[in-house]
């Protein structure tokens, strides 16, 4: 690193004056940097206040709880209830989590504990690639590949074998809760994998070595040392993935069918909070309509803030020691 000569010369000058200006310049520098860091906090607070103020009209018209509980969404008659969207968001997210969690943890264990180094180095970028593919491309694939596959193969199969369950009743459309959940699961699995792998790597090697030295098998070491040690971090990765799923927009919009209905059948089309904002925002022709959509964004923000905060807390609890 090159330290310029002018500075070296400056040191040789009248030291006391130099030192004072240094101290002042450094203090200013630190304040400027701190200001930029502070902007991040400002941004989040601003975001929350801004969305709240913009959604006040919708909450004032219906009342907060009635807005949340309302099951009718009819912009023509100016009735706005957000429940079908909240329902759709929760159902697809939890179903996606149900599919993605075992796969994600299994893969993380494989990458962190079982695979030889060269294989991990080969596979990890692929998993990252899965996380890097834009949402809209998952949606594109969902419309033209997954959705026909669901309509023609997967959903008839489920219907024939498990048709007595209420989840699998109704006409197999290929678009709806199930397809959306599947796409979501594919999209959030990389988050579970990357965070869980990282957390599993923080398990102290001597603990594992001690276990092996006592004659424990691989699975016993995992079950009794690695997994308990990493438990809270792995849980954090799942909650983090949940936050992603809750806010995921494009892919879900493209395959869920966009119908504001609450049905227990997973084959039926539904709607999510993010999807209704994406679809109807530019069509909102009067202010209370726009305000209702911003109110949904505000609720979505609140939910994801809480879920994210929980996730970060869980992950920090495990990796804090680093």
């Amino acid at each position, binding site marked *: 690193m090159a330290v310029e000569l002018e500075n070296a010369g400056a040191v040789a000058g009248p030291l006391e004056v130099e030192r004072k200006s240094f101290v002042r*310049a450094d203090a200013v520098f630190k304040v400027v940097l701190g200001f930029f*860091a502070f902007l991040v906090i400002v941004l989040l607070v601003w975001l929350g206040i801004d969305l709240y103020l913009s959604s006040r009209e919708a909450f004032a018209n219906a009342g907060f709880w009635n807005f949340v509980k309302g099951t009718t969404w009819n912009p023509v008659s100016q009735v706005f209830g957000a429940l079908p969207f909240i329902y759709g968001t929760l159902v697809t997210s939890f179903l996606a989590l149900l599919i993605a969690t075992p796969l994600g943890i299994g893969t993380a264990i494989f990458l962190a504990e079982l695979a030889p180094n060269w294989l991990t180095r080969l596979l990890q970028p692929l998993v990252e690639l899965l996380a*890097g593919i834009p949402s809209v491309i998952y949606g594109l694939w969902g419309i033209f590949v997954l959705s026909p596959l669901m309509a023609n193969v997967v959903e008839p199969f489920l219907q024939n074998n498990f048709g007595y369950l209420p989840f699998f009743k109704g006409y197999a459309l290929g678009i709806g809760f199930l397809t959306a959940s599947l796409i979501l699961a594919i999209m959030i699995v990389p988050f579970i994998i990357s965070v869980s792998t990282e957390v599993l790597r923080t398990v102290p090697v001597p603990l594992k070595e001690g276990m092996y030295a006592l004659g424990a098998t691989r699975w016993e070491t995992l079950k009794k040392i690695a997994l308990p040690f990493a438990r809270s971090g792995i849980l954090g990765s799942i909650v983090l993935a949940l936050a992603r799923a809750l806010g995921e927009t494009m892919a879900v919009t493209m395959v869920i069918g966009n119908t504001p209905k609450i049905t227990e059948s997973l084959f039926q089309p539904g709607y999510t909070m993010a999807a209704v904002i994406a679809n109807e925002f530019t069509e909102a022709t009067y202010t209370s309509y726009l305000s209702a959509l911003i109110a949904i964004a505000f609720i979505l923000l609140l939910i994801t803030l809480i879920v994210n905060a929980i996730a970060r807390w869980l992950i920090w609890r495990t990796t804090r020691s680093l």
Partner: protein
Amino acid sequence: MADDKVVVGKTVLVGSGFSYWRRKISSGFFTALFSSSILVVLLPLILIVGYLFYKGAASVNINFLLHRPAPVGEPGGGMANAIIGSAYVVGIAALIGIPIGLFGGIFLGEFPHAKFSNVVRFVADVLNGTPSIVMGVFAYTVVVLPMKSFSVLAGGFALGIMMIPTVLRTTDEILQTVPNSIREASLALGVPYWRTVLSVILRSAKSGIITGILLAGARVLGETAPLLFTSFNNAFFSYSLTQPISTLPVQIFNYAISPYRDWHRQAWAGALILVLAILIVNLGMRTFSRQKYEHSA
């Protein structure tokens, strides 16, 4: 049997009551289970990327890369304006996201244990997990409504604030790996602290910081949701900051949900171009981060 259990002192540690072979078999079973899950995870990746190249490669042609969209019903046309538009919006986003992320990140990296730093880190992580569509709504109320028009600026604002947490956190982490001896050497030569940070520490952390910026850029390049009602769409070539503009992800979305076969074909072509662009940025990132490791070794 002797290998029934492992006993240390009076504590039975593992496998009490199980025979050696049962333990071996259950271990093998779980190993196989975990190993197979990676295959299930990679299967959709192979399907998606494979199908993307299969459909996209057949649809990309010189017209697609050089022309703007043809009117409805007319075949042909392309996404040239959307490709330029994406670069434009991401460029504006970088102007907003990089300074805040970089300087904020320097603060965190230089004062990593301050309580304030931990709060900022937490907020940045939470902000990182905020749905992109919410960022779009935010940009709409803050930029589009006052300006009374969809614009490049609004799209850039939405993507810019999404870049901040990534740039901030990578800068933070990279600066913490810069050895203290470098810092001290510079200070001992009488270089003021601010010069030390700007010309010594930043220089040695350069490749890591660039990696973070590229990562943030690659992530927002594929974002669709925040652009739907900020930069909106435009069928023409447009370079005005205050006018709506066409971007690749939004164009792919609009074409994908359209009823026209030719537009579907172009959606695949656009998707291929978008993924290739993201892959190229990622490859660039990898070369940079490799340099980083060589540097620290």
